[in-house]
């Protein structure tokens, strides 16, 4: 079986802007906070998932980006849930939420550790949230790197594809620290998979370091 990779869809969220497969969503409202932006985007997408409000900002951002790109790709309809993997990267890990949790235990005279904040003090929880939402059961991993590294993303996806453990992968970069945030998720499929017909293959691109870097550096900045 050939293991040619095919980049079929992507979504980038950064600086009050959402870009999906080169289509830029007009944002007319200026949000003073990242939390306000996330809430407005959730409402705009007309998603009904009350657990969204309980997530930390990293999970909310990953959740919303995955909603956009998965809806566009219909990858959930084309593969078994065990065939879809998720590989994510960032540089700040869960530091935003770690700091929030620290505040609940900082003062010994006002010591009330928050269980609901604590459960988000690992960056890979965002993967769990996406998997729970869509019942995805494939391989997953979350890596911390200094900056967006297209080569590392592709190497990891290619490795899993070659192992035969997955046939499609949601992968990319989700980073949040204070009001700085950016999320770029790709859907990469195995071109030789039965799910990739000629039409889908024609619409996809070969995912190279250059392609991924172009999307990351040339959009939404």
């Amino acid at each position: 079986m050939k293991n040619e990779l095919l980049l079929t869809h992507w979504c980038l969220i950064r600086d009050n802007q959402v870009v999906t497969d080169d289509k830029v969503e007009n944002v007319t409202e200026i949000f003073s906070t990242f939390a306000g932006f996330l809430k407005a985007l959730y409402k705009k997408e007309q998603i009904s998932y009350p657990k969204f409000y309980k997530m930390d900002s990293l999970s909310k951002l990953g959740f919303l980006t995955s909603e956009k790109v998965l809806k566009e790709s219909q990858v959930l309809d084309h593969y078994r849930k065990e065939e879809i993997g998720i590989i994510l990267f960032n540089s700040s890990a869960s530091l935003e939420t770690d700091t929030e949790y620290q505040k609940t235990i900082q003062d010994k005279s006002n010591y009330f550790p928050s269980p609901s904040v604590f459960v988000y003090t690992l960056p890979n929880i965002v993967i769990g949230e996406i998997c729970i939402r869509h019942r995805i059961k494939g391989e997953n991993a979350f890596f911390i790197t200094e900056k967006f590294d297209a080569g590392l993303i592709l190497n990891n996806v290619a490795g899993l594809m070659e192992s035969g453990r997955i046939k499609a992968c949601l992968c990319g970069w989700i980073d949040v620290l204070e009001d700085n945030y950016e999320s770029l998720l790709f859907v990469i499929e195995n071109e030789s998979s039965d799910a990739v017909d000629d039409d889908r293959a024609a619409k996809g691109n070969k995912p190279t370091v250059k392609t991924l870097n172009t999307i990351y550096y040339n959009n939404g900045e």
Partner: protein
Amino acid sequence: MEELINKLKKEVIEQLNLEDISPDDVNPDLPLFGEGLGLDSIDALELIVLLEKNYGLKIEDPKDGKKIFYSIRSMAEYITEHKKA
């Protein structure tokens, strides 16, 4: 009691980030878990923290939790009873 129930409704909504729910939506007699508000195990822990933080009440026996957190009214009754003591 009704005043405490209304206060508790607001506190629970805020503590558990129940954004799409208003105090009027919460029936104080319906179960908080399962049906009702559909809370989960992490929410249960947050309610324990809420009782301790806002009312200075520590639940000594975890088995009491099921009864205390059955509904907003049962929480209010527990607070009323134990704050007096």
